[in-house]
């Protein structure tokens, strides 16, 4: 949990323009608050397997529920524990974000009003590493999004997306192959290598 959350913090810090104090950046990063609650909940799920951590659970589960409920009510971001989100996740804004029953790789970024969830049969999408998902996007159902793909704003995914492409439109159409999303992700080269080390260690 700590390594993944530190990677999230680093991603958030990548967007620092140098204009204000660091506390201001983190105080207004609404997605980071949601991610903190989510990482805590995931850590508690794994802590159930370690019996020496059992005394913590009755204290920490209410804290988790309180935090996640606050995030839900205040920002309307719902990162449910059935989602498996990799380190270095970035949520651009707040508002009507639903992430549940899916698998998301490292260094991904999503916008506001985005739904990533399973269809009615319960099979969820699998998203690769370093994927940029724009605002208003919908990924619902058992689709596989390849690594380094870019999904534009308001795109509705209705099938598998290959690696490194740019998709736009409803239904999604492949617009550009080999699209480099490094700039819009805001990833800095050195920070990415650091997060890889953090994820590996």
């Amino acid at each position, binding site marked *: 949990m700590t390594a993944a959350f530190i990677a999230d913090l680093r991603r958030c810090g990548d967007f620092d*323009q140098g204009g204000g104090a660091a506390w201001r950046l983190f105080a207004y990063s609404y997605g980071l608050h949601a991610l903190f609650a989510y990482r805590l909940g995931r850590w508690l799920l794994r802590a159930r397997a370690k019996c020496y951590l059992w005394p913590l659970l009755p204290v920490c589960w209410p804290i988790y529920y309180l935090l996640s409920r606050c995030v839900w009510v205040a920002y309307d971001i719902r990162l449910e524990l059935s989602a498996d989100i990799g380190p270095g996740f970035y949520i651009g804004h707040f*508002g009507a974000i639903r992430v549940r029953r899916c698998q998301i790789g490292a260094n991904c970024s999503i916008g*506001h009003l985005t739904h990533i969830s399973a269809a009615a049969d319960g099979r969820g999408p699998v998203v690769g590493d370093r994927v940029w998902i724009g605002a208003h996007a919908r990924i619902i159902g058992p689709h596989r999004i390849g690594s380094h793909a870019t999904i534009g704003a308001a795109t509705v995914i209705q099938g598998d997306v290959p690696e490194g492409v740019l998709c736009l439109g*409803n239904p999604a159409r492949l617009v550009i192959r080999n699209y480099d999303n490094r700039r819009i992700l805001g990833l800095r080269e050195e920070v990415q290598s650091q997060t890889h080390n953090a994820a590996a260690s």
Partner: protein
Amino acid sequence: MADARFYDCLGRVGRPGAGSLAWTMLHNRGLWMLTSHRIAHFCVRRRDARSPAWWIARLCKSFGAGFNVIFCRSQLAEDCEIDGAAYLSDQGYLFCGALSIGAGSLIHNRCTFGQKVAGGGAGRPTLGKDVWIGPDCVIAGSLTVGDGATVLPGSVLTFSVPPRAVVKGNPARIVRTNFDNSGLRRSLTIVPDVATDTL
């Protein structure tokens, strides 16, 4: 800040018999959002003249940003130039990074303008006067929406819209030119009859 035209948008939200002016203001979150935006905009515009009023506004602004997020569920860029008598929906989820919004425009909920709300940068659209923008629209990029244009619900614009045109779809296309949207702007219907019937 709160000019005479600001009160025009009260006329838009207040139905006849809806109650007093105070009651109307209390129940329209779009108006709260607009008020807190006007305070923040005043701070940004009058950065050089630091009167006592400026310091009070500066204090309100720092609360206003969080207030907009938690109670109005929207974010507006502080330097966005919203002319009076613009009506913003009270349903929230408006992410407005536009450069300017013209007078008399009606903007529904769940819209996104611009690629970034905070910090300025490229990709900020300009909305003209008297535009009608339906819910769930995305206008990202340095585009211009002409005066009197109508953007139907769920559109994603990839080009500048000429004045008085009607666009819809994702990606958007022009479905009609020289359309008078004054009837649409007078009501708050989300899916306009005129659009479903004839467009």
